[in-house]
């Protein structure tokens, strides 16, 4: 009796699940329909300042599109992906519009979860898609189709203390050797030469990738094949380890972004490789750096090519109101509102905004925006292809093991390279 009951409950549930999972495939989005869009757009976003800025623009959007109701649900990062994927799997979606982190883009697109936006982009007036930085557009393009519109970037740059550099007679390093020297020189008793983020997984790869590029290496070639197993990668990792051992805070093997920021803001480290938009935050008078505000500057990472991260707007295939969602995306990413967003402190994605004197003046100054523009010019993401998230973790594990001294540099690189290739081929 009891067993039978359990079984029938399970079977019933299974049947329901199968019925529930199948939906959403027949909606082949593409062309924008005419007329004024209307409907509710539920969007999931990350709990970050850039989201708050978008929220602050909403009343303006509402005025222009009174029939579209945009409802923002802001969540912590770790919670977002699970919920997005869950929403994909449902026939009645939770979200009509989403923001996609670059490692997810390929899998989401290949998983047939996203609406291709090419036709809508072409049809949109004065949209000027070319205005978005090329690497950002590339991320949103999977197998020739465009699935996202850039929202904001999180490319990395070198954030350093101008005053300390001046005192020591240093200029921002352009090579790894110079970075090493600068870090060593700035390393004094109470203050580390550089704060690093060697935490296993995403964090170390995100940081070390800049070293790799700086050493002239690459992660993937034009055909997306992994080319990590190179002398350049070995050099980059050796340099990374040397700098960590010589100039990073003691015992900081598990450090991530948070600790580095705290160290730099708290005058316990002279510089860090971090997200470019941390600069305005650090320089804000009432920001985390307190009295140190204004003493920070942003430079390109040594070598000039940095790791790129980006968030893109996208519309799930099972969105209940794709037209209204697109109306919002087109509106918020238009040149004009990009400008407003950037002035309000958002991380830029359009060349036009970054070269706009009005933005410089009301934002964080010309230097900052031109530096960001040049960072974005040739920045590249950690992974391009399937299973990006896992590939990043695989590489990040070997890198971290090498820094911890559990693996030799040589072994770590070859293991990372083969692991990465295997993951991409899965």
């Amino acid at each position: 009796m009891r067993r039978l009951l359990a079984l029938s409950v399970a079977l019933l549930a299974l049947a329901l699940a199968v019925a529930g999972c199948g939906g959403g495939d027949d909606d082949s989005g593409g062309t924008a329909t005419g007329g004024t869009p209307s409907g509710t757009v539920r969007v999931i976003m990350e709990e970050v300042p850039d989201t708050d800025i978008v929220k602050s623009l909403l009343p303006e959007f509402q005025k222009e599109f009174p029939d579209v109701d945009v409802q923002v649900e802001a969540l912590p990062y770790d919670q977002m992906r699970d919920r997005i994927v869950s929403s994909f799997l449902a026939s009645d979606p939770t979200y009509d519009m989403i923001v996609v982190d670059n490692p997810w883009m390929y899998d989401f697109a290949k998983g047939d979860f996203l609406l291709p936006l090419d036709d809508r982009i072409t049809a949109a007036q004065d949209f000027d898609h070319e205005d978005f930085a090329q690497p950002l557009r590339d991320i949103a393009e999977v197998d020739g189709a465009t699935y996202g519109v850039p929202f904001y970037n999180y490319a990395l740059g070198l954030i350093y203390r101008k005053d300390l550099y001046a005192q020591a007679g240093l200029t921002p390093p352009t090579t790894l050797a110079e970075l090493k020297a600068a870090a060593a020189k700035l390393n004094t008793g109470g203050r580390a030469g550089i704060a690093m983020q060697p935490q296993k997984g995403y964090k170390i790869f995100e940081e070390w990738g800049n070293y790799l590029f700086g050493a002239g290496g690459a992660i993937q070639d034009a055909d997306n094949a992994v080319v990590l197993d190179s002398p350049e990668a070995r050099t980059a990792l050796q340099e990374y380890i040397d700098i960590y051992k010589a100039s990073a805070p003691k015992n900081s093997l598990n450090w991530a972004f948070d600790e580095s920021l705290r160290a730099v803001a708290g005058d316990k480290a002279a510089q860090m490789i971090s997200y470019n938009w941390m600069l305005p935050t650090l320089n804000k008078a009432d920001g985390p750096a307190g009295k140190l505000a204004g003493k920070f500057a942003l430079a390109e990472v040594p070598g000039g090519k940095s790791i790129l991260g980006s968030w893109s707007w996208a519309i799930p295939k099972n969105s209940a109101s794709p037209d209204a969602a697109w109306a919002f995306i087109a509106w918020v990413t238009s040149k004009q509102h990009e400008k407003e967003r950037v002035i309000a402190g958002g991380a830029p994605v359009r060349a036009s905004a970054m070269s706009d004197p009005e933005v410089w003046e009301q934002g964080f100054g010309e230097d900052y925006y031109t530096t960001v523009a040049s960072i974005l010019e040739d920045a590249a993401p950690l992974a391009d292809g399937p299973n990006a998230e896992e590939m990043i973790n695989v590489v990040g594990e070997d890198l971290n093991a090498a820094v911890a001294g559990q693996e030799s540099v040589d072994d770590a690189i070859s293991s990372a390279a083969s692991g990465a290739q295997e993951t991409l081929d899965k």
Partner: protein
Amino acid sequence: MSRPLRALFLVIAVVAVAFPFAWVVLISFKSRVDLNDPSSLSFTPTSANWSEVLHGGVLEAALRSVEVGLATVSVSLVAGTLGAYAISRFKAGGGPARFGILLAQLMPPAVLVVPLFILFFNWNLRDTIWAVIAAHLTFVLPVVTWFMIGFFDAVPRELEEQAMIDGYGRFGAFRRVVLPQVLPGLGAAAIFGFVLSWNDLFYALILAGGNAETLPVAISSYNTFRGVELGAMSAAILVSVVPVLIASFFVQKRLVRGISGGGLKY
């Protein structure tokens, strides 16, 4: 152990427990700038973290956690107590029943959460506290049942037999005579189940974030992509601990007595 040694040991234990809490209290009054050095003692106290926490939905989340905990525990107590009685007294379900309870305690949430999600989706319970309650039942129910089996094992069979001879049926005897014997244990199991539910992050995070945020979710949301908001998180931790601590001051005696009522058998 001699008396001074015991006292010393207890003092060390109290300090070991108190120290992190003292630190948490300290940093809950620190500003963002002061938090760059979380351990320094010289800082200008600010109430910003507290007002952020108290106005930022943490209290609502705490209330929701209480609701989830109470509901989970109530269902667990009813189903778990009856089931435990059946397993203890009638060997109902035999080995598989006891085995299933162990199994349930062991299952990693990461594996159960996706099927659960699909289930709640189909039942239209997504993003409600009901989903969280149901998910919490997957681990609270086995623990409560496990506890209660032990308590029932300790109740002499003659008591209910006497009650049945005295004029009650099975259920009457259970309700009027057996149940009162395990009440203290029931309390202990309830509190323990409540703590498990109160602490769960994983299920609550995935099954009911935004609209049905529980306290751990609220606390963890201070661990952002852009760093940990230590100050606000600390205030939130204190919000979550203080009420339970006060409660535990009043119930710990009962808790100890409840568990020692004979429920700890294998």
